[in-house]
């Protein structure tokens, strides 16, 4: 109790210090404003246009900045931080190349609705437009991939802009907001007046649903014989997982969750069918195709989920709950549109929802189907199988780890074989499919959750796209556990080339990649290699018990494919279930 009082007191002291009206520079205004927004960790990389900002950080005991080794690492780390915590992730980069190195990360966050505030420096205001050294029109470049952006023209605007940026990033449909600060603005001095309220006329997200539409949903549930819930990332982002659980429990409707929705519902539950889509479960895909009521909760009918649109859920009345009205009807015509925040909507729905009484036969059928068609693979005692490695990681972390992934086959195996039970435990680039995301996002996830086990599952391809961030794990002792599923090939591309391009393997061979153990050790990170089950168990156990960061390279079978698979252009019930005999 005494300690709590002490923390509270120091927090109040900090706030008093930060809000003190003083004449300070734009850079100091930025740092104070970020601290007042509750930012406890910023990822960044200095350069000419942000020198005043970095100068303000010098000797500032309140401000926690982590120096990455590439701006892309900084923004993916900020993204992982945001996804694993629900707080806004923040990163800083300089003008020109610093800013453009953030572009992939901004697009990644935008596609998956992740709240970020991205701060870039720019050249001196009077030089903007003159092709000055390290000048890039970053607000122009990022317009299609940001929720909003600001180019600061007057230091007086800075406190308001920062406060608005945090508000916009983390409300409504969340997303990245960019603040571009010319060098003279970060140098200019003015009286700091903290801004604590927002008034943005053109921005007022609808949170509460239309009651009539909710009533229609409740009625549809009582009439449905084959109802199904499709839950997505919106459940996690709204913090509505408990409401979702209550909704499923009350209605007894079977549920499938999208890739980004994994963890929104406990995977061990009897009504859980697994993930749908291109590499989803047999039962989830089949059930969508035969459902007579499909309740989409916070998912956006991405093409990897729907397969061929013409022929998707052909018998279903479609209900779509989404905070973003533009998603409703965008891809799939909707019968009952419900615009609102998932958590708020479900709270209201839960007051009236009844058990779907006509669906007993359907429930029994789907349960049997789940038992008959689980994800499966042929294990081997000779070679390591990637699916087995994911199962090993799941068992040894009791399903409680935060798992981040890169993109490709290992990502799908992680989604299939790691059984998630808690939200914000799964960090993956779903929409943009960004290679190089897996490892740095784990650093951010760990910074946000110092007490949880964070495992980053990567391929040998993606690991090499941001491997330089091993340095910051070693230097700052960030205890991320990195699994590299090494099949010496760009596996997902190989799989498509095998199945769709007639075994014409073009530029997928990653043999000759560095020795990952030596590479990790060169950065000062403990590392292990495993080529069989026994080595894998031992190496992974050592990595987990090691107090600092650790890398385990699992050398796995090269030709393994992800199944089931729905080929692009097929409806989702046309699944390839395994390798041709």
């Amino acid at each position, binding site marked *: 109790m005494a300690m709590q009082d002490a923390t509270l007191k120091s927090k109040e002291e900090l706030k008093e210090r930060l809000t003190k009206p003083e004449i300070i520079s734009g850079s100091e205004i930025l740092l104070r404003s970020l601290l007042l927004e509750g930012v406890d960790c910023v990822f960044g990389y200095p350069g000419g246009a942000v020198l005043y900002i970095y100068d303000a950080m010098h000797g500032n005991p309140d401000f926690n900045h982590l120096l990455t080794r590439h701006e892309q690492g900084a923004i993916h780390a900020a993204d992982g931080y945001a996804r694993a915590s629900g707080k806004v992730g923040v990163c800083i980069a300089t003008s020109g190349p610093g800013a453009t190195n953030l572009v992939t990360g901004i697009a990644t966050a935008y596609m998956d609705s992740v709240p970020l505030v991205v701060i870039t420096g720019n050249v001196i205001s009077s030089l903007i437009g003159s092709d000055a050294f390290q000048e890039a029109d970053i607000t*122009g470049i990022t317009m299609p991939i940001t929720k909003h952006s600001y180019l600061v023209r007057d230091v007086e605007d800075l406190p308001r802009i920062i406060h608005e940026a945090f508000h916009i990033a983390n409300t409504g449909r969340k997303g990245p907001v960019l603040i571009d600060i010319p060098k003279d603005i970060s140098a200019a001095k003015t009286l700091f007046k903290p801004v604590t309220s927002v008034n943005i006329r053109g921005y007022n997200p609808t949170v509460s649903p239309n009651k009539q539409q909710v009533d229609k949903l409740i009625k549809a549930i009582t009439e449905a014989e084959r109802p199904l819930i499709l839950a997505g990332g919106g459940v996690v982002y709204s913090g509505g997982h408990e409401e979702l659980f209550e909704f499923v429990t009350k209605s007894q409707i079977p549920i499938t969750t999208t890739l980004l929705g994994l963890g929104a519902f406990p995977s061990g539950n009897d009504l859980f069918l697994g993930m749908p889509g291109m590499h989803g479960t047999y039962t989830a895909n089949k059930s969508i195709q035969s459902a007579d009521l499909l309740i989409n909760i916070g998912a956006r009918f991405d093409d990897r989920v729907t397969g061929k649109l013409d022929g998707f859920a052909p018998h279903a009345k479609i209900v779509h709950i989404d905070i973003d009205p533009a998603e409703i009807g965008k891809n799939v015509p909707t019968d009952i549109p419900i615009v609102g925040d998932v958590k708020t909507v479900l709270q209201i729905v839960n007051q009236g929802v009844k058990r779907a009484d006509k669906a007993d036969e359907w429930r029994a059928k789907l349960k049997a189907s789940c038992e008959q068609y689980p994800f499966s693979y042929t294990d081997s005692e000779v070679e390591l199988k990637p699916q087995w490695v994911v199962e090993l990681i799941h068992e040894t972390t009791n399903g409680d780890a935060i798992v981040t992934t890169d993109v490709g086959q290992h990502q799908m195996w992680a989604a299939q074989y790691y059984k998630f039970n808690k939200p914000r435990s799964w960090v993956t680039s779903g929409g943009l499919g960004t290679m190089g995301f897996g490892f740095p996002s784990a650093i951010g996830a760990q910074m946000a959750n110092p007490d949880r086990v964070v495992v980053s599952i990567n391929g040998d391809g993606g690991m090499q796209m941001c491997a330089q961030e091993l340095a910051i794990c070693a230097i700052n002792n960030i205890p991320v556990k990195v699994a590299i599923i090494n099949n010496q090939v760009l596996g997902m591309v190989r799989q498509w080339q095998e199945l769709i391009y007639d075994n014409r393997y073009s530029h997928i061979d990653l043999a000759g990649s560095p020795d990952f153990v030596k590479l990790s050790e060169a950065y000062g990170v403990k590392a292990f290699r495993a080529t069989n089950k026994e080595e894998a168990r031992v190496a992974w156990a050592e990595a987990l018990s090691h107090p600092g960061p650790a890398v385990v390279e699992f050398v796995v079978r090269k030709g393994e494919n992800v199944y089931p698979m729905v080929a692009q252009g097929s409806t989702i019930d046309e699944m390839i279930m395994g390798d041709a005999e």
Partner: protein
Amino acid sequence: MKKHTIAVIVNDQPGVLQRVSGLFGRRGFNIESITVGSSEEIGLSRMVIVTTGDDHTLEQVTKQLYKLIDVIKVIDLSSNPMVGRELALIKVNAEPGTRPEILGVVETFRAAVVDIGTHSLIVQVVGDTEKIDAMVELLKPYGIRELSRTGVTALNRGNTK
């Protein structure tokens, strides 16, 4: 493909035209014409955009526009009675011999001659798109040297807002 005229009330901010036109471009929406100017309220501009597409496209255009923070209001003008006008300046060949004929056309259209050169006239015509199209057709035989059209600006009639 239906033609829609929509008004977009936006914050008078640098870059706002880029945000709106960029959205049309990347989402594959067509812009037939776009006009921007001040509105009845200080700090807000009114854009009038003529676009083509089915009702689903119009719905998406509207919803996507509303996602822009700088967009305050989107009005589907053509769903109600509206007045749509554009202005054209037409520089047409006019030797002394053909001038009376051209002036006859101008008068019929209640247009105006706003400049007279030794071999040409500039005709200013205001009206809906069809009227301007007709004027252009009639002046073509004389030889149009240059043509500049503003694109449509519009308001709903009467009490519709």
